[in-house]
C-alpha cells in the first residue's frame, strides 16, 4: 500500500470541478468566471489522466492535452470578448450581458 488508488484522483477531480462550477454560479465578473471555468477544465483533466494511468494507456493524456489546447483557445476568445465589452464602456457584469436572449 504505497500508491494512490484511482478513487482518490477521481475524488480530487470531482471536487475541483465542483469548485469551478460554484465559481461559475456565484461570480458576476466575467474574468473570474473564466478563471472558474479553467478550474473546471483542470478537474476534468485530472480525471482523464487518472484513467490514463489506471488503464496504462496514453489516450487519456492525449485527450487532456487537447483539452488544454481547447482551454487556450477558449481563454483567447473569452478574454477578447471581455476586452471588447470593456472598450464599449459597459459594466463588467455577466448579468448585464443578456441582450442575445432574443
Amino acid at each position, binding site marked *: 500500500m504505497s500508491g494512490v488508488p484511482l478513487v482518490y484522483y477521481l475524488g480530487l477531480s470531482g471536487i475541483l470541478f465542483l469548485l469551478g462550477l460554484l465559481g461559475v454560479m*456565484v461570480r458576476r*465578473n466575467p474574468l473570474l468566471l473564466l478563471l472558474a471555468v479553467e*478550474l473546471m477544465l483542470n478537474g476534468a483533466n485530472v480525471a482523464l*489522466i487518472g484513467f490514463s494511468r489506471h488503464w496504462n494507456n496514453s489516450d487519456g493524456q492525449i485527450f487532456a492535452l487537447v483539452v488544454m489546447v481547447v482551454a*487556450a483557445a477558449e481563454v483567447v476568445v473569452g478574454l477578447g470578448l471581455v476586452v471588447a465589452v470593456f472598450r464599449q464602456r459597459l459594466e463588467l457584469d455577466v448579468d448585464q450581458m443578456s441582450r442575445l436572449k432574443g
Partner: protein
Amino acid sequence: MGERIVFGVAAAAALACGALVITLRNAFQAAVALIGSLASVAVIFILLAAPFAAAVQVIVYAGAIVVLFLFVIAYLGERGVAGAPDRLAPYRVFGAVAALALLAQGAIVLLDTRLPGAHSDPRPPGDIGSPRAIGDAFLSSHLVPFEATSLLLLAAAVGAVLLAKRAIQMEGGR
C-alpha cells in the same frame, strides 16, 4: 508511502487554491491563486506518470494562459466588479444545494464503484506519459485530432484579432 504524502499535500494545495480562486473578489489575487492550483495539479500529473502533461500544464497553463489573464486584468485596471447588488443573491442557496447534491452523488459513486482496481494499489505504469510516447501517439494514431487542434488555434487567433479590431474601430481609434 511517500507517494501518498505527496498526493495529500498536492491535492490539499490544489483544493485550497481552487477555493481561493472562487472566493477572492480581487481578480489579480484570484489569478495568482489559480497558478497555485494549476501547479499543484501539475504535481498530481507527475504522480500519474504524465510528466509531459505536467510540463505542458506548467508552461502553457500557468505560464501562458494565466499570464494572458494577468495582462488583461492589468489592462482593465480596478474597475472590474459592478457596484449594483447581485439580483440573484437570494437564490445562491439553491446553487449551493445543487452543487452539494452533485458532490454527494459523486461521493456515493466513488465509494460504491465496482471498477476493478479502483480502490486498490495501482499497477506499475508503463511508458505512457513520456514526451516520446505522446509525440509518437500524436503523429501516428491521433494525427487527425492533432491537426484539428491546430485548426482550432488558428480559428481562435483569427477570432481574437477580429474581436479586438472591431472594438478598436468602434472606439473610433486607429
